[in-house]
């Protein structure tokens, strides 16, 4: 037994030693990002850190460019039949997986089939699918029962869930079973022996990757591995990460707390800037199924109670350059930006809130507010929020807890006295919120909707219309209607838009602005 323990310890030690990485001419980009990579099957979690790392390892048939338009990625060319029902896709030459095998049409088909079982847009494609078959080793055909203009958008989507292409032998894993082996054809390959959850996640350049010829744009265009290795180091303390950056032990910190800016801005070897991504938004989530929030007047009173300005100041203090007040449910700076119907939550007015509460016959029933204290933004913004609600005439029961408890409790549909809830705050990245098809709040789908379960037939119909709309102008018009309806019934209330502050050593360059942060094309000089 003792021998086994010693052997295991030695193995662990060697594993950690290996994770330091070889010295020499190798360029290693060391980054600190939020969240841990505990697993890598992107169909089993919607966690952004997993998805973003998976983008390094896997390639996609299509990708969103910097303007959020789908562009071919693994696909060389594609055609659509005149009746709008049959797509033919031809893969680029020379694509290979990290195990050295070529990417084939069979791999793509198996990957699509697994993805369709999990993704909501994939399910819409599956509903309309007549047949999918390989034409030859690098071409395949998708035949639909009816025209569906969203097929390529689906193949390019990046939010819950992207369509990552993997070898057929792995893609044949049932969608209900989590993958244990991660082989992709992206610009970086996973080094599984060096990946220790909670400690480090390591990828190395995939020598066989053939980048597209176009300039990089968002998640599309040429993906070139600019460094030999990327080590994503796990920190549990922000200050330690900042100190490591100052000492040159790491190269990039994705989220720097605002209070540490003065230290970093003084150092001439460090660049501090907003993360080059669309941004984030925190939102007030409301349980539509429980009184008194089942009353639309009470929900509208809540719109008057909030202040985006106060919420953002709770996070960023006086640094107004770090956030923006944004009336758009689909994010400011996105194709579907509009301010329609947002007047109530863009101007805090306690008197109007009180008047609406009176009109609704609100009797002072306590609003159960779920308040995680281990997540900085939710903690601080929540404190502002609770105070504002009380000033607006709500009776608030501020239930403080940790995030894991909040995650559990928010799924409870019982009345608040039986473990349910009324209101909480959460955050989504802009890439999820910017598209009505991925924005979780605007489906109006009752039981099937995101927690809060807004149930609204007009919104459901608008969602379906948006899904089937085939041109940009029509989609924009429907998105405006969706925002108007959503604000009217108060599906959620945005609390301001911001970008995380990132800091990196000036020896690092090449970040590509886009919907999310990826690390291909990033280079590191001595």
């Amino acid at each position: 037994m003792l021998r086994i323990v010693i052997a295991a310890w030695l193995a662990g030690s060697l594993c950690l030693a290996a994770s330091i990485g070889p010295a020499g001419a190798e360029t290693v980009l060391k980054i600190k990002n939020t969240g841990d990579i505990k697993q890598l099957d992107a169909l089993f979690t919607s966690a952004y850190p997993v998805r973003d790392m998976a983008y390094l390892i896997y390639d996609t048939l299509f990708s969103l460019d910097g303007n959020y338009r789908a562009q071919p990625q693994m696909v060389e060319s594609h055609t659509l039949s005149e009746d709008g029902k049959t797509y033919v896709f031809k893969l680029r030459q020379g694509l290979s997986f990290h195990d050295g095998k070529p990417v084939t049409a069979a791999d793509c088909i198996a990957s699509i089939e697994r993805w369709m079982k999990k993704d909501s847009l994939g399910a819409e494609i599956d509903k309309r699918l007549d047949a999918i078959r390989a034409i030859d080793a690098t071409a395949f055909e998708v035949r639909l029962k009816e025209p569906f203009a969203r097929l390529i958008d689906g193949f390019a989507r990046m939010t819950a869930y992207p369509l990552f292409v993997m070898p057929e032998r792995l893609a044949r894993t049932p969608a209900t079973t989590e993958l244990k082996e991660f082989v992709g054809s992206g610009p970086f390959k996973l080094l599984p022996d060096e990946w220790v959850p909670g400690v480090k996640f390591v990828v190395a350049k995939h020598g066989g990757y053939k980048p597209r010829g176009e300039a990089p744009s968002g998640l599309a265009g040429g993906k070139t591995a600019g460094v030999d290795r990327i080590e994503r180091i796990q920190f549990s303390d922000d200050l330690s990460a900042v100190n490591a950056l100052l000492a040159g032990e790491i190269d990039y910190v994705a989220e720097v707390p605002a209070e540490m800016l003065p230290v970093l801005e003084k150092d001439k070897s460090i660049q501090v800037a907003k993360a080059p991504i669309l941004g984030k938004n925190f939102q007030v989530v409301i349980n539509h199924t429980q009184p008194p929030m089942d009353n639309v007047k009470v929900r509208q009173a809540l719109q008057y109670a909030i202040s985006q300005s106060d919420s953002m100041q709770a996070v960023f203090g006086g640094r107004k350059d770090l956030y923006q007040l944004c009336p758009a449910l689909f994010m400011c700076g996105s194709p579907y930006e509009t301010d329609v119907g947002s007047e109530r939550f863009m101007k805090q007015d306690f008197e109007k809130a009180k008047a609406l509460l009176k009109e609704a016959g609100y009797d002072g029933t306590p609003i159960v507010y779920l308040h995680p204290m281990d997540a900085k933004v939710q903690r601080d913004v929540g404190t502002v929020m609770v105070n504002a609600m009380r000033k607006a005439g709500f009776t608030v029961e501020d239930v403080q807890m940790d995030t894991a408890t909040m995650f559990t409790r928010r799924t409870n549909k019982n009345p608040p006295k039986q473990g349910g809830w009324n209101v909480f705050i959460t955050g989504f990245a802009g890439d999820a919120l910017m598209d009505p098809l991925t924005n979780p709040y605007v489906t109006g789908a009752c039981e099937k909707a995101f927690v809060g379960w807004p149930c609204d037939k007009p919104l459901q119909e608008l969602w379906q219309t948006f899904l089937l709309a085939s041109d940009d102008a029509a989609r924009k018009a429907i998105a405006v209607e969706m925002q108007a309806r959503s604000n009217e019934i108060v599906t959620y209330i945005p609390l301001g838009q911001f970008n995380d502050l990132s800091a990196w050593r000036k020896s690092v360059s090449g970040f590509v602005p886009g919907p999310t942060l990826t690390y291909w094309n990033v280079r590191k000089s001595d």
Partner: protein
Amino acid sequence: MARFLFSRLLATLPVMLTVLVVVFMLLHIGPGDPAAAMAGDNASAEQIAQIRQRLHLDQPLVVQFLIYLRQLAQFDLGVSVYSGRPVATMILQRAEPTLMLALTTTLLSVLVAVPAGVFAARRLGLVTDYVVMALCVAGFSIPVFVIGYALMQVFAIELGWLPVQGYRPLASGLWNSLRSLTLPTVALTLLFAALVARITRATLLNVLSEDYIRTARAKGLPERKVVATHALKNIGVPVVTVVGTSFAALLGGVVVTESVFNLPGIGRLTVDSILSRDYPVVQGVMLVFAFVLVVVNLLVDLSYALFDPRIRQDMRS
């Protein structure tokens, strides 16, 4: 002696079983659901239910406990609900930094604190005694993260002599490993040395007032010899007890120190697992820690025989 050892080891079984039941119940009765945390923000109730089913979390608590016991009977601590990795492997991967930090801190604490405690006791009421005791109070009172960040600022960022963060395993070379542990070891030593020094001083003062010490002095032995030959070995039992307990506590993981210096040790594994409700990992860590604690206590008890012949006699009989 063998009988003593056997009876002590046998006594660990109820301790382990109690730990097992208490930890299991605390985790499962408490709020929080790994399935919800695992599924992420976008997950539907259906997806969460699927994960719960896969992890047997939909089963009654008794059934879940029996499943866990069956695993343990096969020497299997289970797998992490998030990463799917064996818990035993995860603990072993994180054991080295914690064990090394515990060893270096204990060693440095004893090397610094015992002479300091003796020195203070021999100069009772003099300035040097007050200085040593003041340093002990400071070491005990200043939070370890304050000391940690101060050390980091001076020796890692300003002077660049030592790394800011991270752990270099033994396999990368003893020197590299010790360098990466220097700052956390010093930060923790200030705390533990203060404790050991105070105990050493207080115990030695007690011993020095005993009759046999007076007799030794009356025989004309020089003070140095009185302390070295007669007094020091009699302070062994309380000092070893404190050192042993401290060592066991260090093995349980020092979360703040591990976080400040970004050491991938047991402490961080435990806290991360608790926050994410990774039940098998928390249960596994607690079980291993309870076992280590029992073993360390047993070793401490055995070491008493080295210092006290009466205990040696008791063990033999």
